[in-house]
């Protein structure tokens, strides 16, 4: 039975997101310099924070996979990185919109968070092609974990390098929570982070439950119909079967009635 607690998590996420957006629109004060467009801050920054944390989480799961050889950790690592990539794209898009609205350019190089965000995206975008180019599922899982660990360590290191390289002369007061954030904004901001984290966790849980259910269905079909009746797995970047049905006498279905009778 997979997906336990999904309903509660869904409701919590829905409530948190609704509350966040209500507060963003009706409670958080308008920024004096940037006006309404500044409110994208409540989406962009939480998404960015959740993305970066998720990449590091993916690396931790990958390390656990290598340590325990339990393929479920690989599945978790894969799903976390997969959803984080989607959040990453969302973060880049909202960042670009904000940059265009505030400074008139779609892209600004003197914003270290945004730049390192792009580099991290370019690195993690290779995760799927790497997986796809390895056919053996066990090796795929191992190699992907090695990559995820390296890439997870890369996230903070990259941030240090990019930050040091940026002149950092931007006149922006917001986006850095250096005490310059009014308390009303800070409250909404914290809630926004919680809501985004919940949304992220929810998406991951759904995806993991779906993948595991599909695996189990496939294992059951193989057991019931015989392993020859189920189409072989195609190439995929996603982790495949955790533990295929063993071809032993217990699990293998008889191939023909005569065999069954004997």
């Amino acid at each position: 039975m997979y997906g336990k607690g999904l309903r509660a998590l869904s409701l919590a996420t829905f409530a948190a997101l609704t509350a966040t957006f209500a507060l963003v629109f009706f409670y958080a004060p308008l920024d004096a310099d940037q006006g309404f467009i500044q409110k994208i801050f409540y989406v962009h920054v939480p998404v960015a924070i959740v993305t970066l944390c998720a990449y590091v989480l993916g690396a931790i799961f990958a390390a656990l996979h290598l340590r325990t050889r339990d393929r479920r950790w690989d599945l978790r690592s894969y799903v976390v990185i997969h959803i984080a990539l989607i959040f990453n794209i969302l973060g880049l898009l909202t960042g670009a919109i904000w940059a265009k609205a505030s400074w008139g350019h779609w892209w600004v190089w003197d914003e270290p968070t945004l730049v390192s965000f792009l580099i991290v995206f370019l690195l993690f975008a290779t995760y799927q092609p790497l997986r796809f180019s390895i056919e053996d599922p066990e090796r795929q899982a191992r190699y992907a974990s090695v990559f995820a660990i390296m890439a997870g360590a890369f996230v903070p290191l990259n941030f240090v390098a990019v930050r040091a390289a940026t002149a950092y002369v931007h006149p922006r007061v917001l986006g850095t929570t250096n005490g310059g954030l009014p308390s009303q904004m800070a409250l909404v901001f914290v809630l926004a982070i919680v809501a985004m984290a919940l949304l992220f966790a929810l998406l991951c849980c759904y995806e993991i439950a779906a993948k595991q259910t599909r695996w189990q269905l496939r294992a059951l079909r193989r057991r019931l119909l015989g392993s020859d009746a189920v189409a072989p797995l195609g190439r995929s970047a996603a982790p495949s079967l955790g533990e295929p049905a063993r071809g032993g006498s217990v699990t293998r279905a008889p191939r023909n009635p005569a065999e069954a009778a004997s």
Partner: protein
Amino acid sequence: MRPSIALLRKDLLLERRAPEAIPAMLLFSVTTFVLFHFGLGRDEVAGQLAAGVLTVTLLFAAILGINRLFVAEQEEGGFDGVLLAPIDRTALFVAKAAGLFLFLALVELVAVAAFAILLLGPSPWPGLPGLVLVLALLNVALAVVGALVSALAIRTRARDLIVPIVALPLLTPALIAAARATAPLFDAAGASGPPTKWLAVLALYDLVFGLLAYAVFDFLLED
């Protein structure tokens, strides 16, 4: 340590018998300088521009070497040979990283000279000690990450595609640091030493990825 030396000696011998990586990296570097001359429309470069041209060229040349690093092991059964021996598997990582470091150093010996003659505006001599230091640190980064990425890609179906798309973003922080550290060495107004900040970032990169690659390399060989 002794197995690593045996493996390294074998790699150097192979490169001497059938030179592949070093000549290719060398030709690639010099050709790229010529391309930069036309692409930038400049006879001479200095400062940050010079630093960028040099480090990016070396990075791309390194990709060629990284692509070839494990080809002999993969195609001629060297992996099995090493795995059957009673040695630590990380010996292979150490040997490959050391080999790549040496290859890069050899290539740079000629490539930097060619760069100074073909493109560099200011005299290379005042900044040379600093350049050696920066390149040594950059080579460690290229060697460590290169050896790992090469092993990661060698048994995939699209290895020559996987190497650059994984290695380039992974090496971006090292490139940022190396390019920034090199810039003052090529300053048109007179060379000054490489900034400590960037040397520190480069050294931190070497340390973190060196240890990490050393720790995870085993898992790439186990089947």
